[in-house]
């Protein structure tokens, strides 16, 4: 059995930042906790620019949502509280810990957060899979869509003072955030190109992808456990 471990090419900012590359990145054995400071800084950066974002959650602000990028070996626990939102990186989340789960390729989730693709359309095409309390999902989608996020721009502009912690979390996170340099637009384009293409062509079939990812993830988590 071949071991799927594509290598991350350094300085490849102009090469397509493809899901395979992301996957390769992620397939390196890494503890989720190493990524946490990067996500903390990222969320702080976004919230600083959009302080009212989670106000739209209203009575659902206490709900927890699992964001599951199916092509990455970690999941995110989103707590969209109006004043103290949190985004926690986890190896896995039990269904009973959250009100709802949103699954999809990372590129799709980013494109969705930036309002560049239509959530309903993704759902209609099965590019996104949602489970649990649909009301919470709808509220979260509306809160994020309504904020008008420019995720990459917000992150890069907002990360200035937090660049330290980001650099401190090791190669992986540094690669994720540090590698992008100033080329926000090209990064964004390459990052979500696939999601945009999928929404255009209606050719995404998450079912197949899920099967593929499930087997990959198993291997990754096994490796992750071995490494930690």
């Amino acid at each position, binding site marked *: 059995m071949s071991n799927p471990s594509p290598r991350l090419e350094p300085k490849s900012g102009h090469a397509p930042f493809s899901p395979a590359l992301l996957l390769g990145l992620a397939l390196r054995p890494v503890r989720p906790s190493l990524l946490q400071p990067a996500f903390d800084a990222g969320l702080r950066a976004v919230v600083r620019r959009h302080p009212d974002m989670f106000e*739209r*959650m*209203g009575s*659902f602000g206490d709900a927890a949502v699992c964001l599951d990028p199916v092509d990455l070996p970690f999941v995110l626990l989103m707590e969209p509280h109006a004043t103290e939102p949190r985004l926690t990186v986890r190896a896995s989340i039990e269904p009973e810990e959250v009100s709802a789960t949103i699954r999809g390729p990372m590129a799709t989730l980013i494109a969705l957060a930036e*309002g*560049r*693709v*239509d*959530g*309903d*359309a993704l*759902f*209609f*095409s*099965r590019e996104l899979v*949602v*489970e649990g*309390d*649909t*009301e*919470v*999902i*709808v*509220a*979260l*989608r*509306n*809160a994020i*869509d*309504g*904020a*008008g996020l420019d995720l990459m721009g917000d992150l890069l502009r907002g990360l200035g003072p937090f660049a330290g912690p980001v650099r401190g979390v090791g190669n992986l996170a540094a690669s994720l955030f540090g590698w992008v340099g100033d080329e926000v637009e090209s990064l964004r384009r390459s990052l979500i190109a696939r999601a945009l293409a999928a*929404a*255009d*062509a*209606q050719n995404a*079939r998450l*079912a*197949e992808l899920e099967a593929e990812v499930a087997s990959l993830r198993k291997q990754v988590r096994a490796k992750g456990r071995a490494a930690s």
Partner: protein
Amino acid sequence: MSDLERPELVCPAGTPAALQSAVDAGADAVYLGFRDETNARNFPGLNFNRKELEAGIAYAHERGAKILVAINTFPRAGTPEIWHKAVDDAVTLGADALILADIGLIGYAARTHPQARLHLSVQAAASNPESIRFYAERFGVRRVVLPRVLTVQEIAALNPRIRPVETEVFVFGGLCVMAEGRCALSSYATGRSPNMNGVCSPAGHVRYVETAEGISSELGGFTINRFGRGEQAGYPTLCKGRFQAHGKTSYLFEEPTSLNTLAMLPDLIKAGVTAFKIEGRQRGRAYVGAVVRAFRAGVDAALAGKPMPEINLDDITEGGRQTTGAYERAWR
């Protein structure tokens, strides 16, 4: 076609970001609602508070666009104040028109704010000249959003008979197959309805269940549809579900589909329609931007007598399917 009136393109916004998208993409007017049960898209996380409405009106007015505020549910007996306050605030903040459905509330608006421009919501389902005359003569309603039950021919015949009342018709988006505002299917299954709660087939009563065959979508515990792997899914709106009758399984009421009349715009302009409405306050700003751009191009082309642009909106339609709905007689 230069002698034709330039129709107004009325576009949806569920959030300030969507409002900006709509205005930037060429909307002549944006319609929206308050974040409560006073409007028919009372979805979690959606709609505008007073501060956001004020900012939205400023953004639109600076760019020559209008803001129409939908207060189009039916006030609950005993608590009309919530609805009255919505009317008062929308007028005070400078909304260009109110979109109302309930006769009592229209009466309140007409009495309290005689200068306000009133539009009749599609939720009032005024489907004939006599109903329209009723709202116009008693309450001074200036425009009627027509229910999605009439053909283009019927609309063309209606317009000259009701002038100076204007008509607004839906040109894109989700499609009620029942006469709007006269449907209790949602509350029959979930206890919550468009008329009383501003929601149809509400998300809180929706469940997706993974089965061996694929996904089942449930509403209020009733299985509304089932999708095989790889099949286009749909939101479990009751009237777009698959049911069994006389031993046959079918989309009895309507397929999961979206109204798309882009190719029909010249006919609708000729029919004397004043405004074209795009459905979808609950959709994201990506949808709003794409649809508004397409219809801006369509209306401009129609007015210039040019052929309709070929714009593919497949990827944002429900079930990937499109229909011209009741505008063509065969739909009935």
